[in-house]
């Protein structure tokens, strides 16, 4: 069988599916935020999971702590950087990272699942709100995005039609292999940071951000991009990034929150000096969509060789052909997954 590099992950919002038994129609329960068992995928692709150097997809089945979930966002203060530096003076924050509270199922109630069922009716909560992770919205204090009424109505419309996307705009763009964009790339799958004189690269699971530290100006404002245009500089332990030119086509998650192409995002990416974590504090200003600026905080932790690849937060592979085994990121490319995420998920046969 031929499998696109990125296809498997898109199929499991809530359940593992056997890739060998995929029919043209995939129906799956969508709401569960809990980690899926990966045994099915393992059985489906025995050649990929053989013992040997390639640990990766599904390799962490045996209690590997897949999708660990925290409920709070630890504060990381902006200040001096006392950790290691690169030859050009940048704090060295290279490596593998992933969010700690949840994926993109629900932006303001991470771990809360989707708010509507497949008939467009509100889902009954399965746990108390205070038992789940805090909202990513840290300002305003109510944890909600201050949408203008028309925009709030659009969000609700998207949520109610998510499972049965009878119009193209109800298909979450990530389900079409669209780049995750801003801010979702930070809480989609795990990702890698690589640094160079003049640049910080975020190699996301779907999409790449080249953060310029080189002093070049923003692109002309009529050029709108999936991953926007990022100009940054370091202030101690904080990478300050000015984000413009955002096409804003990437929604914030399966709950459909959005910005417009007028949005300006000011990111402060604050790294802990022990190198273990960072927080993205992103302030969104868009007078055409919101009633006031608001701030999201996305908590992130580092993944290292000590962690087990889990196909979600830590998508890497061991290569033991050199002097010492190393972890490697493999190509992540996705083009033709022209499906919905909901109960009608259909993929074209090849």
């Amino acid at each position, binding site marked *: 069988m031929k499998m696109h590099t990125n296809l498997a992950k898109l199929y499991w919002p809530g359940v593992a599916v056997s890739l060998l038994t995929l029919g043209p129609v995939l129906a799956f329960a969508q709401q569960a935020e809990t980690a899926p068992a990966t045994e099915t995928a393992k059985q489906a692709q025995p050649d990929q999971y053989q013992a040997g150097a390639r640990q990766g997809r599904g390799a962490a089945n045996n209690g590997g702590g897949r999708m660990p979930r925290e409920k709070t966002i630890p504060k990381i203060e902006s200040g001096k950087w006392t950790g290691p530096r690169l030859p050009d003076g940048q704090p060295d924050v290279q490596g593998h990272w992933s969010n700690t509270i949840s994926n993109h199922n629900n932006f303001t109630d991470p771990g809360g699942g989707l708010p509507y069922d497949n008939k467009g009716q509100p889902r009954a909560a399965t746990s108390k709100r205070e038992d789940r992770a805090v909202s990513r919205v840290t300002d305003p204090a109510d944890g909600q995005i201050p949408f203008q009424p028309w925009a709030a109505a659009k969000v609700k419309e998207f949520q109610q039609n998510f499972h049965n996307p009878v119009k*193209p705009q109800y298909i979450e763009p990530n389900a079409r292999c669209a780049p995750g964009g801003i801010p979702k790339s930070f809480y989609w799958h795990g990702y890698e940071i690589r640094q160079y004189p003049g640049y910080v690269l975020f190699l996301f699971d779907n999409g790449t951000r080249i953060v310029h530290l080189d002093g070049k100006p923003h*692109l002309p404002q009529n050029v709108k991009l999936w991953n926007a245009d990022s100009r940054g500089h370091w202030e101690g332990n904080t990478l300050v990034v000015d984000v413009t030119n955002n096409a804003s086509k990437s929604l914030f998650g399966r709950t459909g929150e959005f910005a417009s192409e007028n949005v300006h995002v000011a990111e402060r990416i604050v790294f802990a000096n022990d190198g273990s974590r960072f927080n993205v504090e992103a302030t969104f200003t868009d007078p055409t969509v919101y009633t006031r600026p608001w701030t999201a905080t996305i908590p992130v932790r580092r993944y290292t060789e000590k962690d087990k690849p889990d196909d979600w937060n830590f998508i890497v592979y061991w290569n033991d*052909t050199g002097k010492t085994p*190393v972890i490697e990121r493999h190509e992540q490319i996705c*083009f033709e997954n022209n499906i919905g995420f909901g109960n009608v998920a259909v993929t074209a046969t090849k």
Partner: protein
Amino acid sequence: MYRPSRFRNLGASLLLAASFALASLCSGSAAAAPGEKIPRLNGKPDFSGIWQTTSAADYDLEPHAARKDAPPGPGIVEGNVIPYLPKALEQRKKNFENRNTADPRLKGWTLGVPRAIYYPEPFQIFQRARDLTIVHQFGHPVRTIHTNGTQHPKGDTREFWLGDSRGHFEGDTLVVDVVDFNDETWLDSAGNFHSDALHVVERWKFLDANTIEYKATLEDPKVFSKPWNISVILHRHREKNFQLIEDYRYTVDWESYYPPKP
């Protein structure tokens, strides 16, 4: 799908080695002159920068006169003719006839290796001691060329758009071995193609600080009767403030549905 071979048998290796020897004898092109300054990182050539070819290679790797959808070009294939197996040649002819609809490029899909190198859009190289990261403007994919002494991973199951790349320096030449391709990509806009058995060996060498000579040997026993060589020149973009602009054009058919509008 189990893929039995990466062409590691001795015969293929010897054949490839011989073709390299021949290529270097015939090419005669000058490397950066001794003493000439080229960018270096830890003593090795530093290919960091934004690069692009000016050749017409992507229109057709082989020599061709002008036609409605392509300017003329002298081709970049050593010996001018790609050595197709008979059945593959038939496929190439079909591809050529259908090129204006069948070329994967038209869907905005990642171009593959080596096509992404000589496609007429820029790409940027970011270099560390352990690897080179290439971000192509077209499709915005990321390719890593590992230069840390690792080899292609054991096991034999992956299929990548851009292959699995392992490089090392031979003097001032970066030599990259690329395997583990899928069969979704073409080699140019004229229908030249390959299978998932493609094996590419690239040789990157500075001619001067702003010019790279890029050579590649392509081997694919399902499609070609013998390995064959290409060579293009890559130029550094030196325009003020020049930079990549992401090109995710596979989204254009449906991107207008987002975001919601009042």
